[in-house]
């Protein structure tokens, strides 16, 4: 009934002793996530939140069998933290950190391309499989276990969406925040692919925003590969046009960064568009009824 994380997830937290790291790790533990280790160089051998702390990810993996990592390391050191987790063979790395330089991420992607590690984020809220495991910042109590998958570029707009779904009694299989950076570790397409394969996800809600072409890529996937209903919302229809990056930005992307182009692509691919962000839940409810999905 979920993708990426579940009851079997053994979570390691890089940056567990920092302010944000310890606050949110505590919340994950309270939600029921099996947090098995923390990593803070120099603090190995100590304990934080009742969890053993190691100097290196490799040592933590060896001793605890961690199979997912959640990263709260400051931006200047976050790329290094992602590489360390991948080098230790961790299959799922979730990077919360915002503000990582883009050329650091270019280097990270180059390193990851020959590895089996899947990266979620950076600059993301993480993910949750309600009732099973939370590896992220979202308030656990707004979620409800169920069969609708949620994937989003925005953190807080995901919470908003989930609150609407839960309010209507529509539960979620997994909610994934892929993050707002231009070079996310996992794209809409990567996550849609997993939801399409997951037999217990019956429908997907996709939350996009202006900038880039990720929504158009998602639209192509929805049209060609998805048999499950997709509800989409794209934020920023009334935002001022993005600040232009010389001519090069326009040469690369043309007008594809605009909300209306993304909405048109998703609608043409068969996704149902929520016209207002306040109606994402209701739109999903209607789609589930139309497709005879019980939730």
């Amino acid at each position: 009934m979920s993708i990426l994380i579940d009851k079997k997830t053994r979570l390691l937290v890089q940056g567990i002793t920092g302010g944000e790291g310890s606050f949110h790790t505590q919340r994950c533990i309270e939600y029921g996530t099996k947090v098995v280790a923390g990593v803070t160089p120099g603090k190995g051998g100590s304990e934080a939140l009742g969890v053993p702390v190691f100097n290196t990810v490799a040592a933590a993996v060896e001793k605890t069998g961690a199979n997912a990592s959640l990263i709260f390391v400051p931006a200047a050191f976050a790329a290094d933290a992602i590489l360390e987790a991948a080098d230790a063979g961790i299959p799922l790395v979730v990077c919360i950190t915002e503000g990582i330089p883009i050329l650091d991420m270019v280097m990270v992607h180059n390193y990851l391309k020959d590895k089996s590690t899947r990266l979620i984020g950076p600059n993301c809220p993480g993910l949750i499989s309600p009732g099973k495991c939370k590896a992220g910042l979202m308030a656990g109590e707004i979620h409800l276990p169920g069969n609708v998958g949620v994937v989003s570029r925005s953190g807080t707009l995901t919470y908003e969406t989930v609150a609407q779904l839960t309010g209507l009694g529509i539960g979620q299989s997994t909610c994934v925040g892929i993050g707002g950076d231009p070079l996310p570790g996992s794209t809409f397409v990567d996550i849609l692919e997993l939801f399409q394969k997951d037999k217990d996800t019956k429908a997907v809600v996709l939350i996009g925003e202006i900038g880039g072409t990720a929504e158009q890529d998602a639209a192509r996937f929805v049209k060609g590969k998805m048999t499950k209903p997709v509800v989409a919302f794209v934020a920023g229809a009334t935002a001022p046009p993005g600040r232009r990056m010389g001519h090069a930005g326009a040469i690369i992307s043309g007008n594809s960064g605009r909300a209306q182009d993304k909405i048109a692509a998703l609608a043409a691919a068969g996704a149902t568009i929520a016209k207002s962000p306040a109606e994402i839940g209701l739109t999903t409810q209607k789609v589930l009824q139309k497709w005879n999905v019980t939730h």
Partner: protein
Amino acid sequence: MKIHEYQAKALLSEFGIPVPKGAIASTPAEAETIAAQLGGKVAIKAQVYAGGRGKAGSIKVANTPEEAEKLAGQIIGTRLVTHQTGPEGIPVSKVLVEKAVRVQRELYLSIIVDNASRMPVMMASEAGGMDIEEVARTSPEKILKVYVDPSAGFQAFQGRKLAYGMNLSPAQIRPAASLMANLYKLFQAKDCSLAEINPLVVTSDGEIMALDAKLNFDDNALFRHSDIELLHDVEQEDPLEVKANDLGVKNYIKMDGNIGCMVNGAGLAMAVMDLITQAGGIPANFLDIGTVNNTDRVVAAFKVFTTDPSVKAILVNIFGGIARVDVIARGIVEAHQQMDIRLPLVVRLAGTNVDEGKSILSQSKIKFIEATNFYDAARKAVAAAKGDKI
């Protein structure tokens, strides 16, 4: 972050890329002196953070030092309006005075990070100049691209590929390829988000040089480039955005309406703006308050709202995650203790530590309008900004 053309050219020069001889002038007299030193025809170019200068008439050619003084006087101290600025324009306080170059060919060269391939891409075209975007739209085959493998870096063969592709003469291939390699070095070394030379020219003597230059830098990487950060010219930015930034409110963009918005998360902030518009209002700003660890940034945001004379109502919409609702609520209370804020305030809180946040607000003496969901919040804020009773 943007910088001026003259600063970009200094960086190009530092990385071995030829640029026309020239210097920066803040007064007409300085322009005259520079023109006299350069000798002959000079170009006078307004230094502003906006494109479209040529079409707006702020690049002029002077034949004598006296003419340079006169033309510089017509540009310095004015506000320049182009298709990339607002109607109020941006101030011009400096001009670049450059030795005029006889141009044989106008080419185009740029580097950007390509999101799809997740690699830097260098783009080149023999159709450089003001209409390059039109070229990209109508004849995309005229834009040549090479992708740079980050572990290998920019290779000489890639430079040759672009140079031959632009039909340069045999003698020009090597200098062009070396210029490209140097531009990539600069892009990498300074964490650029954009390096663009348009036009890259072949002079009548067959030399290749950057006649114009635009460099943008990755804001997230400025922590390791204090030299670049110093180049920032705040005069070129919206004064409220500068104030917000100085106060530590980073993701603030001034807009045309009258509802001051404080939201956490860029996507939610955009969605709130969409809802305000749907409810018949216009936001005064975009603001993603971001990860709030203490109350300072919340108080600072209220300082910005109270400085903006167009703000008639404030809308706070927070869905706590990494931002904690209790901290935001405490910030709202502190702001009202520190400042005399009489603007109607609409608050919608949800998420991490929401109960604590709500009780902090309700126990304070602040007057506020509570909203139950975010459409309700937008609707109430629009009504409050109009002066309606709620």
